[in-house]
């Protein structure tokens, strides 16, 4: 919602003119995103995307003799209802006004009916975990214990933390319940306390201030100018689309109606795709571009915005490192699960510098989520696709390996949404990395940032 708020602020300040889509041929990366959206329209809604039902079973075998012994995890809650009514009210109020003056076409009237139904269904459920969200969390936990049974054997310990938000607490609950169903001897502890918010859901006030600098807004304005609006949609829903502009802001309406439709993929209304079907794949793709760029500006290493926002999750990364250091000393450390939000998971992925193991053409992944660029056209080209990081239920898992407790060369690999990814450090056994290398690299990076921050530069 913070992103939506920012967008509203942006629109209010700049009133960009809706223009038609630049019809230049699509680049290879654009085509790749379009293909994904064609298969899965919800991908276009970025953080409202739903978690995949199944995950490819193609994990790389561990180096000889090494066995998984500990998991450290941070996961976003599963699918939920939209946080606040305001996200739906923007297009809805415009439709109410248009309906009052009898400007709705037959399709427009049907859209209005669907919007009414969605609002009624969502009332008093704002932000609640949905049944789809519960199922996602169960499936993720089930795959975790099935893929790494050694970590959860016998009376292994599972320690879980959640932010104090109900949907995160319940995501933790159903995950733990699923694990215990598979192994009732697990020793489980859980907590959802204000006392852990400093790393579980840290929002850095200093870095937040620069989340959208004038320079960044200018770049964003330029980037979105050719991607806003949808005159085809206006003609479809309103009898006099040119006059209805007085009551319906085309850019707002297009954006929020699309979001409203796509959001239903997270609820029990997911079979009714009437709203989503109003939009072409290209419409959805443009919205994805608009959103993706904004997420990059606000949560990535974008130099236009100070280039430091991912450091907002430095406490979490330090905590994960400290926890791992401590757990490695134990004979059977089990698993540490953390349940939070996408506004934490995305910058954490950027901070770690997660990147794809391979590009679409099979070459080694070159660009990661630690991408730094002032050219917003670059981010799509270089694979900075936020939807691939932080759908509902998204998660990062560190899986640790060793031969036995005396083994000093601890290996680990990172799973992003349960698939192996690469890191920006050298390894002789990727996707496995030497824990000491990763640890040293991260701590050095964090120390350097904190030194800079403390010196006020």
């Amino acid at each position, binding site marked *: 919602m913070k992103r939506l708020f920012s967008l509203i602020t942006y629109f209010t300040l700049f009133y960009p003119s809706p223009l038609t889509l630049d019809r230049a041929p699509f680049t290879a990366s654009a085509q790749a995103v379009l293909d994904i959206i064609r298969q899965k329209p919800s991908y276009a809604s970025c953080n409202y995307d739903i978690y995949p039902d199944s995950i490819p079973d193609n994990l790389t075998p561990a180096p000889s003799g090494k066995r998984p012994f500990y998991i450290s995890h941070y996961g976003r809650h599963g699918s939920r209802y939209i946080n606040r009514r305001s996200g739906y009210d923007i297009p809805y109020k415009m439709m109410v006004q248009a309906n009052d003056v009898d400007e709705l076409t037959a399709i427009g009237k049907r859209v209005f009916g669907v919007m009414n139904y969605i609002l009624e269904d969502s009332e008093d459920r704002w932000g*609640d975990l949905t049944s789809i969200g519960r199922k996602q969390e169960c499936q993720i936990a089930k795959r975790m214990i099935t893929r790494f049974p050694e970590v959860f054997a016998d009376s292994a310990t599972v320690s879980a933390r959640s932010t104090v938000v109900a949907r995160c607490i319940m995501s933790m609950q159903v995950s733990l319940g699923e694990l215990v*169903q598979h192994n009732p001897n697990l020793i489980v*502890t859980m907590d959802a306390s*204000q006392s852990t918010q400093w790393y579980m859901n840290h929002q850095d006030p200093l870095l937040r201030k620069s989340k959208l600098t004038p320079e960044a807004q200018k770049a964003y304005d330029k980037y979105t100018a050719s991607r806003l609006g949808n005159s085809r949609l206006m003609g479809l829903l309103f009898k006099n689309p040119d006059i209805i502009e007085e009551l319906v802001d085309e850019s707002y309406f297009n954006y929020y109606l699309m979001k409203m439709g796509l959001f239903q993929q997270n609820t029990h209304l997911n079979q009714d795709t009437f709203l989503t079907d109003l939009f072409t794949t290209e419409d959805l793709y443009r919205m994805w571009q608009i959103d993706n760029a904004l997420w990059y500006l606000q949560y990535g290493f974008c130099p236009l915005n100070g280039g430091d926002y991912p450091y907002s999750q430095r406490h979490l990364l330090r905590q994960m490192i400290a926890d791992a250091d401590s757990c490695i000393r134990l004979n059977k450390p089990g698993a540490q699960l953390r349940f939070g939000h996408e506004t934490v998971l995305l910058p954490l992925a950027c901070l770690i510098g997660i990147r794809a193991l391979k590009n679409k053409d099979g070459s080694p992944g070159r660009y990661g989520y630690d991408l730094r660029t002032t050219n917003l056209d670059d981010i799509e080209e270089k694979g900075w696709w936020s939807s691939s990081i932080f759908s509902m239920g998204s998660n990062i898992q560190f899986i640790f390996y060793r031969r036995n407790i005396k083994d000093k060369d601890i290996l680990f690999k990172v799973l992003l949404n349960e698939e192996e990814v690469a890191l920006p450090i050298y390894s002789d056994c990727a996707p496995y990395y030497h824990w000491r290398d990763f640890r040293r690299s991260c701590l050095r990076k964090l120390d350097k940032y904190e030194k800079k921050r403390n010196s006020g530069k």
Partner: protein
Amino acid sequence: MMRQTKRQISATILFFCCVLCSTAQTISEELQADVRRAAGMHYALPITEEMDDTPPPQGKKPFYINHYGCPSAYFLERAQDYDAPYLMLSRADSLGKLTTLGRDVLARVEQMRKEAHDRTNELTEEGKRQARETIRQIAKRLPEVFTDKCFIDTRSILENNSLLTMCEAYVELSRVHQPMKLYTNATKRHQAWMNPQDEVLENQRRDSLAMARYREFTARWAPDDSHLMKTLFNDADYAKTLDAATLNRQLFDLAGSTQYVEKGNYASLFSIFTPEDIRRHWMRRNAWAYIRYGGCTINGGYQSYTQRRPLWNLIHMSDSVMQLDYPVAHFRYTSESAVMSLVCLLELDDFGVQTDCLDSLEALGWADYRISPLGGSMIIVLYRSDKNDPDPLVRVLLNGHEARLPFPSDCVPYYHWKDVKRYYLRKLYTYIRERNEN
């Protein structure tokens, strides 16, 4: 009005019966046996004891559990609850105004404040243990319900302490049997039957007469502030500059909360109060709980009807579950005040008693810690021989013990479902009619 008069007569009879005939442990004896009970609704119910279960009549087996649970033990609700007494004692200490005991109390309060930092209103470790043990005990007592086919539904209000109680219970339920069909939800949408509010009754709750009577009662039963101040402060003139009554109350709150943390961390604060003051503190709180959630006739006698929707839901849900051929368990986690009103509305163990005499509560056995302590629960268990059984039975467990319902049965503590349904639906509909007429 007729109904209310009859109830007051019943209360009077019950009062004399209690005074003259009771052989059960009195409230004074209970407080002496375990002073932690004086924390009232913040008493953390011990779960360790073995419960006596009356066997069900021949051939009857449990098939439906409908559970309403209070949150387990949690830290006090506001940081202010810890900060205020700490700051007052801390300042006095800096001025050298504390006695040896006063400094000791300060050290204990400081430790409690530290433990509760950023954890107010959250479950303590003791609370988590309590939530898990409660489920283990239920599963042990009613094993016939927890089978492959059983469907379990856990729900909570959106309060952190209730949510975490539900989470602990859910995980423990996952441990009881595998595979188990478990469902969970916590949403404002269910507020109407999870923790309903009633504006009309809330407006009556603190009406001027009730507040006047309560103030008169608390003045008569005020603890001896001067005694406490003498034991804590070495300078009587300095002590006079402080709000002794507030400090007394705040320290008593803290005393109640020490039972939630790991045993042995520090000595209980109850030791600084005299037995008489402990009793007075408890009486004042108990009366306040009765006015707000019980059958107190000073403010109308209907406060417990705030929970009429959960009762209604309970009846209809039971009727629905009877149509199923598999066992069902509903675990609902709500506030301790909602459970209290529901127990009073159901008139379990005579807790529905109506009186305008706050002084009679102790003799009537109306004690908040008996009704909805932390970790407490009210569980309705339905029994039948098979799906076509025309005479399902009901047994109610209140905080683990078999409870009495307000009408007779030929198989107590089991009651015939048709009697249960008839009594409570009539009670609800009578109230609705009277309310509509007024």
